[in-house]
């Protein structure tokens, strides 16, 4: 059995205890999507403000476990201020780390830096929790898709 220290890294617990970018944005102009984890009932809402192809602001609300909440918090920090193309690349990079997307051998993805998000790598050893970690990322994509951007 993999050790819990692989899962509950200090930075993850820090984001769980003190989540960044919590709250809501006015819709419109912001775009909003709700994500559900049908396995555990966790719910997350992502608000995304997009101006001139830049994700200028993001807020997260909802409830969930330490993994889903910390992942959402770290994601919000990582994507804020990025271009939509960079956001897409980051989402893909994250999914590759979570072993649910193919990793192209060459290409722009290699250049994408995950930073603190690397701390979530240990989640892969706990396959049941991958859905928790990815919930906010899929919800962000949904918000951007529904905005038809």
């Amino acid at each position, binding site marked *: *059995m993999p*050790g819990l220290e692989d899962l*509950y890294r200090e930075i993850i*617990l820090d984001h769980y*205890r003190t989540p960044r970018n919590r709250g809501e944005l006015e819709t419109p102009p912001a775009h909003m999507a709700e994500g559900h984890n049908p396995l*555990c*009932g966790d*719910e997350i809402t992502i608000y995304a403000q997009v101006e001139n192809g830049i994700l200028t602001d993001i807020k997260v609300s909802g409830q969930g476990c*330490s*993994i889903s909440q910390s992942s959402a918090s770290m994601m919000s920090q990582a994507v804020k201020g990025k271009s939509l193309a960079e956001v897409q690349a980051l989402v893909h990079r994250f999914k590759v780390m979570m072993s649910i997307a193919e990793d192209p051998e060459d290409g722009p993805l290699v250049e994408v830096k995950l930073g603190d998000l690397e701390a979530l790598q240990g989640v892969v050893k706990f396959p049941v929790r991958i859905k928790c970690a990815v919930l906010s990322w899929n919800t962000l994509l949904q918000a951007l898709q529904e905005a038809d951007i």
Partner: protein
Amino acid sequence: MNTNLVDWAAVKADFPVLQRIIDDQRLVYLDSANTSQKPHAVIDAMADFMRNGYSPISRSAYQLAAEATDLFEAARAKIQKFINAPHVEEIIFTKNATEALNLIAQTWGRENLHTGDIVVLTHMEHHANIVPWQMLAAERNLEIRWIPLTSDGQLDLTNLSSLLTGAKVLSFTAMSNVLGTLTPVAQLCQAAHAAGALAIVDACQYVPHNVTDVQAWGADFAWFSSHKMVGPSGVGVLWGRRELLHAMPPFLGGGNMIGDVRLDGFTCAELPSKFEAGTPAIVEVIGLGAAVDYLSKIGMAHVRQHEMNLTDYALRTLDDRYGTDICIHGPRDIAVRGAVLSFAFRGIHPHDLSQVLDQKNVCIRAGHHCAKPLMKLLGANATARASFYLYNDESDADALADALDSASDIFGL
């Protein structure tokens, strides 16, 4: 009742998986409300049948097939006796309990429920007793009414008669899979009938843990699963009153369920074949028969008493140790609750809690338990749930209490 008549340590030893050691720790299985472990008797009966007796049933003349048919039908008779059903042909094998309720909704329901008709459910139902009715309600424009709960998680029957006024169906659980609450089944069946409604009982959590008597209940239908009562997965049981089953149209069409098939149509077989289209789960039904034998030998009254003692012990242990840090849902009176403990602990998310407990090989369920409307009522997305069965003992409750401590360490609470 003297539960000392049963050697509970020997019962525990009957379940091979509970002897398993993972990372130098024994397995503490507290997820039996989800699905139960299997004793040697069930495993051996299934393996023996596959090794020495496997054959089709009901349709071949050779001796092997005759033996298999006898074993299969013996299981049906065992179930009949186990729940005190009046007639053996009233026992229908389905693929699981969920299919049993869908069968009722799709056959009796579609035949008898029309625009504006009323179905009464309760706030503590499993999705299996909600969604099939919602599907039918959408198709037939039915009204669904809900019996509310009291603050301690029992059914609030204050307005029962007005809720039942004009209702065609009262469909409810005999025991909540989240709160552990035992409902007054006979009283509810009587009230349903007084209002001219049918009484349908979700007995999934009840049958594995209690003496069941569908005639004493006065129910019209009851349904439950094999896998929660030390039997294999892949089999559910529907019991219904013979007159109702006779009048219902068939469910799935195919082999075994027909009397005759011509180019211009078909006639149905007699009960129970009418509702058992296709090759059934032969091995699993025989395994279920062995499960009924196993439970019957111990005695369901003993099982219930053992679980009451264990529930009492677990409640006291968790309370003594954690006081207000733990919030256990459902009634405190063990006379009206089964051995299912849903709880919140020190604000730690149930998913995280179950992950930490897993390090100690303590297996609990975390989630919404397929009862999202009830979760909403409890003000939670999820709860942690520890559920006990005949193979659990006080040391398992102690292991749960010990493991909770380590969760606090990690989350720094």
